[in-house]
């Protein structure tokens, strides 16, 4: 093909390409709005007057500002107890998860370890097969863990996938460091805690956050194992507020009276409760989101 024709084609490609770029940008803005609009709407409604909400007039921002929903939600001692419980579950659960996963991943990284193969197979099987809801429930019951923190943090503390990602991450650390430390008489414990762990900060930041968010968000384990009201995590409170018939009215004292008078809309309370539940995650999200993406990449490339 001669030079002139080539240029012509190239021009054509460019024009088509720019149109495509423009459509793409508009499309992506649309997607972004779909992703965050539900939150904006929830926040706006939670802060609007009962009248405006029932008219369906609230979309992007609060109308006739009304803070009553939050006053009710944060005035409940249940919420604060649930916050405290959830934070304890998340911290203890994450600590156990990180510590035990690191320990077994380190052992499985060492090629000469006699039990490396059987333990790896043992972990692999759990990725494809499980006992199911009822046998696990019976096991937790048998170990007398109903109504205790252990029912929530121990059964899922070790995930085979995480162990394999940790192991791959550790393998990326030069073996010479380990061998040198061995020669100096350091034990495997010392090497793990003093060399490998400090070198794996990115790994711990990511998987620590994953684990904490997962525990913060979980409700089904609590539904199964926690019968005691005083030990419920935050998601169970939210479930009660969002799904109990009669909406939020029956859940909190004195609210139904306010609803009848039109001071507060059930949605004020429900949405304030949603924000109280996801608020902590949304607040830290901008600071930690780079770790999240990084974490999946560690898993994707190395696992």
């Amino acid at each position: 093909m001669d030079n002139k024709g080539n240029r012509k084609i190239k021009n054509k490609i460019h024009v088509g390409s720019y149109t495509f770029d423009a459509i793409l940008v508009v499309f992506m803005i649309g997607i972004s709005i779909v992703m965050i609009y539900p939150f904006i709407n929830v926040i706006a409604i939670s802060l609007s007057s009962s009248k405006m909400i029932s008219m369906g007039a609230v979309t992007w921002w609060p109308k006739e500002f009304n803070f009553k929903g939050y006053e009710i939600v944060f005035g409940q001692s249940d919420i604060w107890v649930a916050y405290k419980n959830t934070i304890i579950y998340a911290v203890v659960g994450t600590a156990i998860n990180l510590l035990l996963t690191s320990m077994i991943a380190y052992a499985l990284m060492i090629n000469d370890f006699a039990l490396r193969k059987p333990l790896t197979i043992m972990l692999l099987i759990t990725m494809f097969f499980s006992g199911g809801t009822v046998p696990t429930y019976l096991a937790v019951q048998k170990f007398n863990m109903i109504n205790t923190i252990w029912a929530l943090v121990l059964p899922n503390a070790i995930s085979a996938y995480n162990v394999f990602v940790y192991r791959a991450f550790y393998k990326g650390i030069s073996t010479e460091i380990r061998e040198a430390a061995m020669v100096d008489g350091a034990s495997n414990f010392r090497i793990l805690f003093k060399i490998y762990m400090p070198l794996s900060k990115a790994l711990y930041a990511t998987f620590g956050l994953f684990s904490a968010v997962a525990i913060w968000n979980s409700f089904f384990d609590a539904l199964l194992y926690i019968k005691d009201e005083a030990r419920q995590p935050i998601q169970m409170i939210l479930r009660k507020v969002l799904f109990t018939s009669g909406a939020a009215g029956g859940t909190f004292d004195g609210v139904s009276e306010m609803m009848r008078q039109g001071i507060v809309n059930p949605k004020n309370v429900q949405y304030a409760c949603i924000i109280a539940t996801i608020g902590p995650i949304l607040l830290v999200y901008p600071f930690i989101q780079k770790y999240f993406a990084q974490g999946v990449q560690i898993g994707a490339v190395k696992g």
Partner: protein
Amino acid sequence: MKNQKSKAVNSKLPTGQRMVRFFRLVWKQKDLLVLALPATILIALFKYYPMYGILIALKDYKTKMGIWGSPWEVPLFNNFIRFFNYVDAGNLIWNTVKIGLVTMLFTFPAPIIFALLLNELRGKIFKSAVQTVSYIPYFISVVVIAGMLNSFGSTDGLFNVIRQFFGLSAVNMNAGDKYFLLMYVGSAVWHGVGWGSIIYLAALSNVDTTLYDVANIDGANRWQKVKNIAWPTIMPTTTILLIMNVGNVLQSDYTKVLLMQNDTNRSLIDVIGTYVYRIGVERGEFEYATAVNLFVSIASLILVYSANTVTRKLNPENSLW
């Protein structure tokens, strides 16, 4: 090297001596054993002991007698027979398969398309802004998602505000099963599309950029570049995730279904997971619930295995094992 040699020597020894050697080696490595032990105990207690507990599917389970002590069911597969004779069993299985398949049909390709489109964006800052926003729904709990669906679908909720904007009448979308699949699948896509795209974007960021330079010189257009460079790059990841997805078809997100159920739709949208929860945990029919669950687990295993076998026949490099 050393390891190989010792293995070769080992295999010539009689079993007894080999065992002695093995245990001597384990004893020598007791520090590693101690490191692996806590996690191993947790796996044994909470993964393997429940697997042993599946045995109650074949038993007339009495809590006091324990798993082994309880008498065997007569006939042995009584709990399975009971499920297959259950009038709604066909319905349950069909619902589970239908929800699983439709969900996969949308949630599987969505992140791939999203990643390919993101990859075509030119502005770096804009691209990372869109990515950041698209991950947010992933961190929202299932209770919040089901709660928002419940509230948005009510007659004065957001979905109906939108419907009325387009001239449609307001309906209670939570009643019955008419809108269930739409809301279930729609929210699943919303929840996972951004997050699911990360793994594909990671693969795309590893493309050798000279491929694009060569394509530009050859005058390839955008579509040709996507088809011939980007798509082959993410193909292996796609295949592996597809195999794993096939295994999950029967494991619909029953916690979400459970939350979306109300008195008007419970029987219509019941899936095996919610059924197992209801009969097993709420009604305490442990052995029957375990049998139903086992049936699904085995079917899922067969699905993964078949998907992998097919993939291995077509392209051995992309299979899971």
